[in-house]
């Protein structure tokens, strides 16, 4: 059975690209703009491409924040992409005064190089299985498009089921699953066939 996919229509996000990706896969996604619409969907996506503060503030403006916050542990499957994943934590160095959904106890950090300078993780990179974290023989499990300069450290993953991406001596949490929640730092909607299969897998979850 195909999931009924709803995508939060945040103006500061690229939600329309995510909608097109699900449409391409044969789903009929809808844009969510009102709190009462949330309960209609079996699968909900929190989109990214914006700052931590923009996502949280827009959720408050649309009066969606607390209804979304209450979704953890329910039957509804939730997918957060990029900044949409980051706001699942408590806060971010990007907008220190803004409080996230606080589902998980992670703090989003600035991505720095070993010299302490802010860097951007922009482009295609590998994701690696959590079981590889202490292994010297790392095996690639997918290549996806990243574009961010703030990140969640892999050691702060909410669950043992996660992937990570090494970048400039940082271990970026690239995806995880906990209860009914999935978080993804990269952009599956822009990662061609491999990304589309991630979205399809979510809708079938």
């Amino acid at each position, binding site marked *: 059975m195909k999931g009924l996919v709803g995508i939060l229509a945040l*103006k*500061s996000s*690229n*939600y*329309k*690209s*995510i*909608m*097109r*990706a699900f449409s*391409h896969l044969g789903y009929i996604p809808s844009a969510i703009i009102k709190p009462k619409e949330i309960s209609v969907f079996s699968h909900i996506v929190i989109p990214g*491409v*914006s*700052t931590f503060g*923009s996502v949280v503030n827009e959720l408050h403006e649309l009066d969606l924040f607390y209804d979304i916050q209450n979704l953890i542990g329910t039957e509804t499957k939730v997918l957060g992409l990029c*900044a949409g994943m980051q706001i699942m934590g408590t806060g971010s160095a*990007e907008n220190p005064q803004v409080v996230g959904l606080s589902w998980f106890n992670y703090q989003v950090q600035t991505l720095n*190089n070993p010299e302490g*300078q*802010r*860097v*951007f*993780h*922009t*482009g*295609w*990179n*590998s994701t*690696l299985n959590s079981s590889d974290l202490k292994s010297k*023989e*790392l*095996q*690639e499990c997918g*290549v996806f*498009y*990243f*574009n*961010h*300069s703030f990140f969640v450290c892999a050691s702060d993953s909410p669950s043992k089921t996660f992937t990570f991406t*090494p*970048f*400039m*001596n940082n271990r970026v949490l690239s995806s995880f699953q906990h209860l009914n929640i999935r978080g993804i730092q990269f*952009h599956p*909607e*822009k*990662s*061609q*066939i491999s*990304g*589309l299969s991630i979205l399809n897998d979510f809708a079938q979850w």
Partner: protein
Amino acid sequence: MVELNSIYKRIIPKILVSTHHKSLTPQALTTKFYEPFRFIGEPESQALIFQSNGADELFLVNLSPKSIAHSSFRRIVENVNRNIFMPLAVGGGIFTYDSASGYFDLGIEKIVVERIFETSPKELIKVISTFGSQSVVGSCSFWGDEASFLGEVKQRSVLRPESLVERVKFMEDCGVGELLLNDVSRDGTRKGSNLSVLHEVLGMTKLPIIDSCGFGKTSDFIASLSLGSSAVAVGTYFAFVDQSFLQLRGQLSNHGIRVRM
């Protein structure tokens, strides 16, 4: 085994859009010194070709914002973005927060800006505070051949190389997430990109740098990417070279450049 800490180098096709003198319909074209050189087809079909070739990213640039209405270029962006599932950056004629947010509203994730640093940097800072630094590519057009400096190419102003350092610092201070280097004196010439300027800018910033203009041979890609550019953006190259993405990537990989295969 996976290489640690190494992001893949990107090859980014640039689809430049302008109007044909015989038709008002915007078309994709190649340029020489940023002037229309040869029209190569519809932007939408070009984008689909690059999508099927597995390009790493796509730039779609309105080269003539004064003659192509914002609404018609926006329609092209919408059509292109409807059918591709790779990163898309849009540029040309973005001078205000509203024009930038109008493109983000279509679902694209990056804009390419240049003149806004001269006309309205405060608008750009507003864009960055909403959409994030990673959503903005700061473009820098300069005339690398000092001896033949023109000051401007028709109505397009270009910087002298010595002004480039100041501009790069300013773009970084404004908070852009990537830099695009265009040596207009090499555009369309296929004689290689400006490696001395690339080297200088690499020493100034930790931002990812996209090198552009002048790529004509595989060795030009190898030289730029080996020196440290994160990506190469090409407009003319794929229009005139009988070489696919796969062949280029294979050659780059054989030279130790980490590219997606």
